[in-house]
C-alpha cells in the first residue's frame, strides 16, 4: 500500500476510535473536541477544492462558513420562538430539522459562492485574495449590524436541532453525523479530483493558456470549483453552529477564513486528507498549547512558518513524500 493511503487509513481509524475511547473512559469533552476537528476539517476539504485543485487562494471562505452557520441560526431561532420566517406571500416557518437546515445551508452558500466567485474570478493572484477577503468582511459587518439576529452578540440556540431517528444531543451521535458529512465531503473531493473536470481544473491551475488552447475556459472551470468549494464549507458552517448551539459574526471574520486556509496548508495543499490532518493538528494544538498558554497562536505561527519554509507539502507531504499522480 502507498504510504499516503496508509496514513489516510490510520487517520480514519483514529477518527473512529478516538471518540469511542473518549466515550468508554467517560470524557465527553474530548468527543466535542473531536467533533470540532471533524467539522473544521470539512470546511477545509471544501476550501481545498478551490485552493488545491484550482489554485484559488480564497481568503473569504468564512463567508460560506458563516452563511451555513446563520442558515442554521436563523431557521432554528424562528422555530424556537414560534415566529414564522416570513408571512407573505406565504407563511414559512423556521425549522429545527438538521436535514432541512443542511439543504438550505447548502443552497444559500452555493448561491453566495456563485455570486462571489463570478465577480472575484475576473481577477487573479493577489487581487483575487483581496477581493475574496473583502467579500468575507462585507458579510462580517453585515452580520454585526443586523440586529434581528443578535448583531454583534450573536444568536444562541437553546436546543440542538434534530435528525429523524437519532438523539442528536448525545455527543457521540452528533459526532457520527459530523463524521458522515466529512466522509461525504471527502468522497465529493476525491471524485472531483479524478474526474475529467478535475483534470481540466488542475491543468488550468498550472497553465490557464494550456486549458484555453484546447478549447476549455478556465473561468468556467474555476467558477464551478469555487461553488462546490463554498458549498461544502457552508455545510461545515451549519454543523459548527449546531455543535456550539451558537452563531456569531466571528464565523464570518477574516480570522476564520485564515484558519481554514491554515488547516489546508498545515495538512497539505491538494492532498485529499490534507485538511483533515490539518484540522486535527490545529484542534489538538489549540487544546494542548491553549492549556499551556493563552498565546498559543504564537506557537502555531512558528509551526506554520516552519511548514511554509521547510515542508511545503504540509504534514502529509513530510510524512508521505510528494504526491503520486495516479494513472
Amino acid at each position, binding site marked *: 500500500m502507498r504510504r499516503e493511503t496508509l496514513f489516510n487509513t490510520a487517520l480514519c481509524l483514529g477518527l473512529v476510535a478516538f471518540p469511542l475511547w473518549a466515550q468508554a473512559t467517560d470524557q465527553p469533552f474530548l468527543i466535542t473536541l473531536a467533533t470540532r476537528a471533524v467539522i473544521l476539517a470539512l470546511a477545509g476539504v471544501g476550501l481545498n477544492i478551490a485552493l488545491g485543485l484550482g489554485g484559488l487562494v480564497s481568503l473569504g471562505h468564512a463567508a460560506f462558513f458563516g452563511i451555513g452557520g446563520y442558515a442554521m441560526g436563523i431557521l432554528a431561532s424562528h422555530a424556537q420562538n414560534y415566529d414564522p420566517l416570513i408571512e407573505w406571500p406565504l407563511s414559512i416557518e423556521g425549522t429545527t430539522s438538521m436535514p432541512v437546515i443542511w439543504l438550505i445551508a447548502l443552497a444559500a452558500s452555493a448561491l453566495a459562492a456563485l455570486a462571489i466567485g463570478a465577480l472575484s474570478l475576473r481577477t487573479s493572484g493577489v487581487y483575487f485574495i483581496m477581493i475574496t477577503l473583502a467579500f468575507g468582511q462585507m458579510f462580517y459587518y453585515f452580520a454585526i449590524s443586523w440586529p434581528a439576529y443578535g448583531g454583534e452578540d450573536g444568536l444562541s440556540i437553546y436546543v440542538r436541532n434534530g435528525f429523524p431517528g437519532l438523539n442528536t444531543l448525545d455527543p457521540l451521535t452528533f459526532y457520527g453525523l459530523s463524521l458522515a458529512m466529512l466522509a461525504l465531503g471527502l468522497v465529493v473531493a476525491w471524485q472531483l479530483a479524478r474526474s475529467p*473536470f478535475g483534470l481540466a481544473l488542475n491543468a488550468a491551475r498550472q497553465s490557464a493558456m494550456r486549458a484555453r*488552447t*484546447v*478549447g*476549455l475556459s478556465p473561468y468556467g472551470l474555476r467558477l464551478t470549483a469555487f461553488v462546490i468549494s463554498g458549498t461544502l464549507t457552508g455545510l461545515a458552517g451549519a454543523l459548527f453552529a449546531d455543535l456550539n448551539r451558537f452563531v456569531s459574526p466571528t464565523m464570518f471574520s477574516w480570522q476564520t477564513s485564515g484558519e481554514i486556509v491554515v488547516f489546508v496548508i498545515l495538512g497539505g495543499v491538494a492532498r485529499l486528507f490534507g485538511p483533515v490532518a490539518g484540522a486535527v493538528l490545529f484542534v489538538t494544538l489549540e487544546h494542548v498549547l491553549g492549556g499551556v498558554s493563552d498565546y498559543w497562536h504564537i506557537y502555531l505561527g512558528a509551526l506554520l512558518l516552519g511548514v511554509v519554509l521547510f515542508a511545503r507539502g504540509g504534514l502529509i507531504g513530510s510524512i508521505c513524500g510528494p504526491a503520486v499522480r495516479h*494513472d
Partner: protein
Amino acid sequence: MTDPVLAVRGLCKRFGALAASRDISFDLRQGEIHALIGPNGAGKSTLIAQLAGGLKPDAGQVILNGDDVTALDTAARARRGLARTFQVSDLAGEDTVLQNAVLGALGATGRRPRLFGNALGPGALRGRAHAALERTGLGDVAAQRVADLSHGQRRLLEIAVALTLSPRVFVMDEPMAGLDGAGALRLRAMLAGLKAEAPILLVEHDMDAVFALADRISVLVEGRIIATGTVDEVRVDVDVRRAYLGDAP
C-alpha cells in the same frame, strides 16, 4: 480555388512605438504547409498570438473557415478547430504525459468536462489520447511526469496535444527548436504526413526543414510580409536573401 482555411486581412499590432505587425495579409489553404520565416524579433510569435486569440490586433481580421473570429477568445477559436503549439512549451508540468493528452481529448469533445467518472479510465478520452501519443512516439512515456521529460519530448507532447484536437488547422511556432538532428528529421516526416489532415502554418528557423516541407513560404521582416511564394520563388528573391538569408547582394 477553395476558400482558405485560415486567412488574415490587414492585421496591425503595435507595442508602443514598435510596430510588431504591419498590415499583414496572407492565407493558409487546404492541404498545404505554409511556412512563415523571418529573423528573430520579426513578429512571428506576435502574429501567431493574434491568430490563436491570445492577443487582440489593433486592426484587421482573422478568418477561420470563412468566419470572422477576430472577436473570439482563444478557447472559442480552439473549439472551432484551431490547434496551436507554443514556441516555449506550455504544458501542465506537474501532470503526466497521458494527463496532458487527455486534456486535449477533453477539449476536443467541445463539451464541459464531466464532474464524475475517471478521466483516465478506459474509454474514448483515453483512447484518443493514446492514439496521439503513439503517433508522436510518446506511448512509452505516457505515465511520466512532464517535468521529467526531455526538451525534445516536450516539443513532441505539444504536438500530440494538438493532434488530440483533430483540428481543422495547425499553427506551430518553431516546433523543431531544440530538437536534435534525428528528432527534427522524425518530426519533419510527421508534419509532411500531417498536412493531409489539416493545413499547417509553420513558423520555423530550421531552413532545411522549411525548404523540404513548405508548399509556400512567407517572409516576415519587421512586422511586414515582404514576400510570399513557392520555395523556389522565395529562394531566388534577392530582397529576401539580403534581409534574411544574409547573402551579399
